[in-house]
């Protein structure tokens, strides 16, 4: 078995008395898409924020590429990116300006070529010169994805990447993601509330509830373990459990 690119051990995050993430451990292997499932407030976002280094864990360790995030933040984040439906890009800049800023921030070379390439691959030509605040929600989501893919990360954190996209674009995004994974060995932590998408995209799934991992495995394994018809039923059953 290959060495994990992401290794999380006994991760805990407390905000005062509230335990947002409670002793979770998991790995992501090279080229793997790991689904992160859970109801609202389960600790998914806090987990991703800790993995991105914007929230400090209370306990536990995060290693990426064999390096500890706390000690090697800069080297690690150079190879990591994220896209979230809930985190917009600066609204006063155009799409292209935003991409240029990100490219410079990550010290990329041949910026214009890269920007042209990602704009083309994500079908953003028609709005590349538009100010971001004038984009539709689907266009904003594509900009977020373009920003994430522009830097050619080795690990990508995606928080509901297709939430506001129409089915056609959502399908294209999923195909794009699979192609990236196939061609570059990209590893992905994928959070979504769309269970069919989760089944389609994820090699494995971890299910978070009240900060703890309550189920782990392939979609089929989890469905079988809980004796439900599909992943959606498992989600509803676990989400309603006290």
């Amino acid at each position: 078995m290959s060495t994990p690119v992401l290794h999380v051990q006994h991760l805990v995050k407390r905000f005062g008395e509230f335990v947002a993430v409670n002793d979770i451990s998991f790995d992501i292997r090279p080229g793997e898409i790991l689904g992160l499932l859970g109801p609202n407030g389960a600790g998914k976002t806090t987990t991703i924020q800790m993995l991105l280094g914007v929230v400090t864990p209370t306990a536990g360790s995060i290693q990426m590429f064999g390096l500890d995030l706390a000690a090697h933040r800069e080297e690690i984040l150079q190879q990591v990116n994220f896209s979230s439906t809930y985190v917009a890009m600066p609204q006063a800049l155009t799409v292209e300006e935003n991409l240029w800023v990100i490219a410079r921030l990550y010290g990329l070379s041949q910026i214009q070529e890269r920007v042209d390439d990602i704009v083309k691959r994500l079908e953003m030509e028609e709005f590349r010169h538009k100010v971001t605040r004038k984009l539709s929600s689907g266009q904003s989501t594509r900009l977020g994805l373009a920003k994430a893919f522009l830097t050619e990360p080795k690990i990508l954190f995606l928080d509901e990447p297709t939430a506001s996209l129409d089915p056609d674009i959502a399908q294209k995004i999923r195909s794009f993601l699979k192609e990236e994974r196939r061609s570059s060995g990209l590893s992905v932590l994928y959070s979504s509330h769309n269970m069919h998408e989760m089944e389609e995209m994820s090699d494995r799934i971890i299910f978070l509830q009240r900060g703890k991992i309550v189920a782990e495995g392939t979609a089929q394994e989890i469905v079988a373990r809980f004796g439900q018809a599909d992943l959606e039923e498992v989600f509803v059953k676990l989400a309603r459990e006290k």
Partner: protein
Amino acid sequence: MKFHRIYALVTRYLYLYRRSLPRMMEIFYWPFLDLVIWGFITVYLMKFQGQIPGAVTFFIGALILWDILFRSQQGVTISFLEEIWARNLMNLFASPLKPSEFLAATMVMSILKVMAVSVVMVVCAGLFCSYNIFVLGLWLIPFVLNLVITGWIIGVLTTALIMRFGQEAEVLAWSMVFLFQPISCVFYPMEVLPGWLQVIAWMNPASHVFEGMRAVLNASAEPITHLGWAIGLNLVLLGIVIAAFHWMFELCRERGLLVRIGE
């Protein structure tokens, strides 16, 4: 510290000015108004030159120098507020960007703003009040540099407080600097302050710059002592506020505040 990350942020802020009239007003409109109003007041005061020697030079010169300090502080703080308003802190700090690089970018913005505002004010002072700031001679250079650094000190301190206390504290971006104005002795000499306030004013680098400016204009004393104090205090205080900013940044990461500012 990586230059390309500082450059990325500076271009990000400069893009904002391309098509934003309110942001351009911050550079041109307010300094222009300040100068016109104060300029005409001092022209009026010229009638009493006998009672207040060099009133024009004092007031207009002081006003320009104060605006340099103010815009320098704004350059740092408003850049941070731009990130809060755009809810962009997550995008920035989930990248390899270091807090020190972020501060450096805001300081570069501060220098660019000061340069733009200075040109506006110097030209307007010449046109409306026939005033030439360069009467201060070469002393002007170290004075201005020190005021820019004092602006950074107040700007970094304000930014750290806004980061900690959230968007409700953003009013500090415009008000904090005025807390320092009475003890900066911009328009009056330090000796008019009560004794206990003079002690506090001595710890403010800006007060030494303005005292130094008055010394040059009066040709009463060499301003080198004031300049020395200003430089020393600036270096010490800048080190302290940068350390405080880093400490606050870590505190905010620990409490999850960094990603919640602006929500």
